[in-house]
């Protein structure tokens, strides 16, 4: 009986203590104590977690390094591939721009038929200004056909094989093109040179030639169609004791950067040699 009374008393006391503690806690009297305890708990937790992570890293680093190296190699190879793709695409964009300009030129001059060609080489001799293009007689090319770009006259086909052709540029020292100064309507001869510079000769002394005058093909002689742009006058030499004026021409086409050209296929050059009068015996 005594035992049961004392146990009930113990229970009541404990319950009172618990209720008292709860009441004190709810009243906020334990906040400083609980916060200090919580802080201590968090500190311990952080310490244990940090140490665990350190040990875990230490144990797993070699495997991660290997995988990271592999990943790095993969990424580097992917970057190299993408860079190659970027270069390819930039090249394609450049080519597309050039071809688009050529198409614009062809649309603006619908009277001619064209074959587009890529420049694939240059003549081995430094005395000649010839280029090799990647289309030939299989595509309908014939010697004498004019070659142009969207910027203007390039030259004419000199020799043809099945899949390629050699083009004599207007800058070649043996090239001579009949041209006309657009402003003064004066005819002249455009000559190439060993240095690839262009000059105008046989300009009448009476003609008015000024810097900036546009030079076009005249169509005389039958080698080139008329009105193809050649370039502009950059300087004029007029001496009273000479029969003709001379001028230096800046070509519109950059002959060092020729990538694609158009061959005019429906123009046949005329051979006027039989008409040239030769001195009799």
């Amino acid at each position, binding site marked *: 009986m005594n035992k049961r009374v004392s146990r009930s008393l113990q229970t009541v006391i404990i319950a009172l203590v618990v209720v008292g503690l709860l009441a004190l806690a709810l009243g906020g009297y334990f906040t400083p104590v609980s916060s200090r305890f919580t802080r201590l708990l968090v500190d311990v937790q952080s310490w244990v977690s940090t140490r665990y992570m350190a040990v875990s890293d230490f144990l797993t680093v070699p495997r991660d390094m290997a995988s990271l190296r592999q990943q790095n190699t993969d990424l580097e190879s992917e970057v190299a591939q993408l860079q190659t793709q970027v270069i390819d695409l930039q090249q394609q964009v450049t080519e597309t721009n050039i071809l688009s300009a050529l198409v614009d030129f062809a649309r603006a001059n619908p009277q001619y038929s064209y074959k587009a060609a890529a420049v*694939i*080489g*240059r*003549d*081995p*001799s*430094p*005395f*000649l200004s*010839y280029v*090799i293009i990647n289309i030939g007689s299989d595509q309908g090319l014939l010697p004498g056909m004019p070659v142009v770009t969207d910027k203007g006259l390039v030259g004419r086909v*000199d*020799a043809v094989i099945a899949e390629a052709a*050699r083009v*004599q540029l207007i800058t070649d*020292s*043996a090239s001579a093109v009949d041209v006309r100064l657009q402003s003064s309507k004066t005819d002249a001869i455009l000559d190439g*040179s*060993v*240095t*690839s510079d262009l000059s105008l000769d046989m300009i009448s002394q009476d003609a008015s030639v000024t810097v900036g005058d546009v030079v076009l093909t005249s169509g005389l002689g039958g080698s080139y169609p008329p009105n193809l742009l050649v370039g502009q006058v950059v300087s004029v030499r007029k001496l009273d004791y000479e029969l003709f004026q001379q001028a230096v021409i800046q070509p519109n086409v950059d002959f*060092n950067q020729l990538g694609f050209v158009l061959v005019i296929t429906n123009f046949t050059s005329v051979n006027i040699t039989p008409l040239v009068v030769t001195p009799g015996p």
Partner: protein
Amino acid sequence: MRREILLAIPVLGLASILQTSIIGRITLLNGRADLVLLILAAWSLQERVRSAWIWGVAAGLLVGFISGLPFYIYPVCYIVLVGMGRLLAHRVWQAPLLAMFTVTFMGTLELLMLTYLERSLFAVSLDFNLSFVQIILPSILLNMLLAIPVHALIHGLANRLYPVEANS
């Protein structure tokens, strides 16, 4: 001998392609290097090589076919170049680079002078001073610059065909 002749096809073919597509675009003033000429010069200076004349004819025909110059210019010049090379190979064999420079200089000068003469006589009148300063001298300089690496390459190629005995 047969191996040498068979080797001429890829070597001279590749050299012609490189010449027209890459080397021809690298200019000094208006001069250009001539890779085929350099290869012929170096090949003709290799003592154990016996097909240098055939290489000369083949290269001349190949480049003569590509070029706008009259067909005979390159074969004639290359055969003379090989002759000079064979002559020097037996006489200046202790100084191969000196021989290479000599053949390159003489061969380039011969080719360009003959080209100049042909153009002046049959095509168009050319100013000699301008041609000499703008084309001939720069071309000789470019060829001399390329002579050493080309000689090293061709010497290596000849050694592969005819390995030098260890005891010698």
